[in-house]
């Protein structure tokens, strides 16, 4: 099946006084229709930048300096703003972290919904309103037709995020980029929203790029996961594989840092050091200064994504099996 989204060798740069800083460095991956791809990594690893680049909302002076982004086989990274605008919302949707600030406080929910619907789909305002009601019901908001006339401040946090999801789905996009959709919510609400995203994804056949630093969320929802470090993908593959049999030492460290309820563990595993700053990225493999298994080649040459079992890992030692 042809991938819905294809990202090839994407580079995102920020010009700065000390030369260009690379926030996303030669990232390639694909998303199949209806698939949920998780993108996990620490803050600053480049996950949000990748998402922003795909939907064309990179904040200047950041810009795409290399690579291609293809949606349904067509390049979208070089489109003029007018064309890009038509794709946004209609083909690719996005939801952001904070539901409180994602909604305009001065407009009613219903108006915001119908506005989005009418921008992309041809229908009468009455039909648009009916559709808005259905959307609210789908995301699980009771008394939807009354709630249409409410303002954002009249909804609780979890409900607001549901509204945000409804807005993102309003024009039936094929792909949704969800940037930390649950981070600002209570833990109990998080589970509901995750479940909602998953269910809606399957029902509408919408693919999701789920960007988060929370491995637990990924484990619950995603089909595949890409692990990002210092602007690069260091490992990518089916979720179950990555969790049980991580190949890249960074991923090993990540999994080891998660407490395992089934075993008695004296100390949580910690990865020494910290992710490098954008202006101080090491040569070769970006992780090599912190890697317990680094060899000379790691410092000299940047590894590509090599096949390792059913996933790919950017490590010269990926062929060997590593136990958690």
């Amino acid at each position, binding site marked *: 099946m042809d991938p819905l989204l294809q990202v090839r060798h994407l580079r995102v740069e920020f010009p700065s006084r000390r030369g260009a800083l690379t926030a996303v460095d030669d990232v390639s991956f694909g998303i199949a229709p209806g698939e949920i791809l998780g993108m996990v990594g620490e803050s600053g690893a480049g996950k949000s930048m990748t998402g922003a680049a795909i939907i064309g909302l990179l904040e200047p002076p950041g810009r795409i300096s290399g690579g291609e982004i293809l949606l349904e086989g067509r390049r979208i990274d070089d489109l003029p703003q007018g064309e890009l*605008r038509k794709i946004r919302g209609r083909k690719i949707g*996005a939801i952001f972290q904070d539901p409180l600030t994602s909604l305009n*406080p*001065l407009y009613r929910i219903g108006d915001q919904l119908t*506005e*989005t619907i009418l921008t992309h789909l041809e229908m009468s305002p009455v039909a648009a309103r009916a559709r808005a009601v259905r959307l609210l019901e789908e995301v699980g908001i009771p008394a939807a037709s009354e709630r249409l006339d409410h303002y954002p*401040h*009249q909804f609780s946090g979890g*409900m607001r995020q549901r509204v945000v999801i409804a807005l993102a789905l309003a024009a039936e996009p094929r792909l949704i980029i969800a940037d930390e959709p649950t981070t600002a919510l209570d833990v109990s609400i998080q589970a509901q929203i995750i479940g909602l995203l998953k269910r809606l994804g399957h029902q509408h056949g919408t693919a999701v790029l789920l960007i988060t630093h929370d491995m637990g969320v990924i484990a619950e929802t995603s089909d595949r996961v890409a692990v990002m470090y210092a602007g690069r993908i260091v490992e990518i593959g089916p979720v179950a594989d990555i969790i049980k049999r991580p190949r890249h030492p960074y991923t090993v460290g990540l999994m080891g840092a998660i407490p395992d309820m089934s075993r008695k563990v004296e100390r949580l595993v910690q990865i020494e050091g910290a992710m490098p700053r954008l202006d101080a990225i090491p040569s070769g493999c970006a992780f090599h200064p912190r890697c317990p298994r680094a060899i000379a080649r790691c410092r000299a040459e940047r590894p590509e994504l090599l096949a390792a079992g059913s996933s790919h890992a950017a490590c010269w030692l990926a062929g060997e099996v590593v136990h958690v």
Partner: protein
Amino acid sequence: MIAFIIRRLIQSVFVMLAVGFIAFAMFNYVGDPIAIMVGQDTPVEQRVQLRQALGLDDPAPVRFLRFVGNAAEGKFGLSYRTTEPVANMIAARLPATLELSLVAALMALLLGIPMGVFAGLYPQHWLSRIMLTVSLVGVSLPTFLIGILLILVFSVLLGWLPSFGRGDVVRLGWWTTGLLTVSGWKAILMPAFTLGLFQMTLIMRLVRSEMLEVLRTDYIKFARARGLTNRAVYFGHALKNTLVPVITITGVQLGSIIAFAIITETVFSWPGMGLLFVQSVLFADVPVMSAYLVLIGFFFVVINLLVDLLYFVVDPRLRAQDTTGRGI
């Protein structure tokens, strides 16, 4: 909502009473009205009689109530300088000041808001930079200086516009208006611009900075992510959110335009209340001063009240505080 209105009305009454009290204190305790009104050689008995006739020997609270009562009816006593009833003097000049203030306020809004929106949408544009420079001038130079400069250019050098007076005015009952004649408009143009310039630059800078901030918010980002048209994003969402805080600040400023008219009226010899007030200060004509104070206080209170109500209407979040509607 009703509770809010009632609360604000009560507040307003208190403020008016406070202002009235200060005016009363001025009126009654500053200087000796008798000494000023009558000549030097008036015998003592006559002065005592006059005092009693005017009720100046009554206890203070009685006099305060009388003052308030009179003020409510619009009676402010007699001017020390001209011995005319103060109320008449003010009434004759009120239309001039109000018209000037209104035109100035309109100018400030009609020029300031679009300029601010433009400068907010295109901050790097050369026009935006020019606007910022001009606005700096408007904010730092004294009003009277700007007025004089305008006179120098448009009256002395070019001879296009008159530098004093209201032009031909039309009487409509108690009101006189200069807005129905060409010469009236020519006369009001420079004073109104001078008076409104400060507010105009304030509004422009305010709208611009609000716009810049709003454009950085998440909901604008989300609106773009939903593929809304530029028009919808900028003039639907961004503009509305920009204008809400601008309303309150502008409203309060508009109140002070009426007071700032003092300066402009002096520069352009505009026959309004402000000029009257300056003359009354020069001659220590306390009744006029205190009447002016009360009137200005009244205008401020009314304008503040209207602005609060307007804010209430415009921002739905404020309305919710009064109802019990809560999110689920």
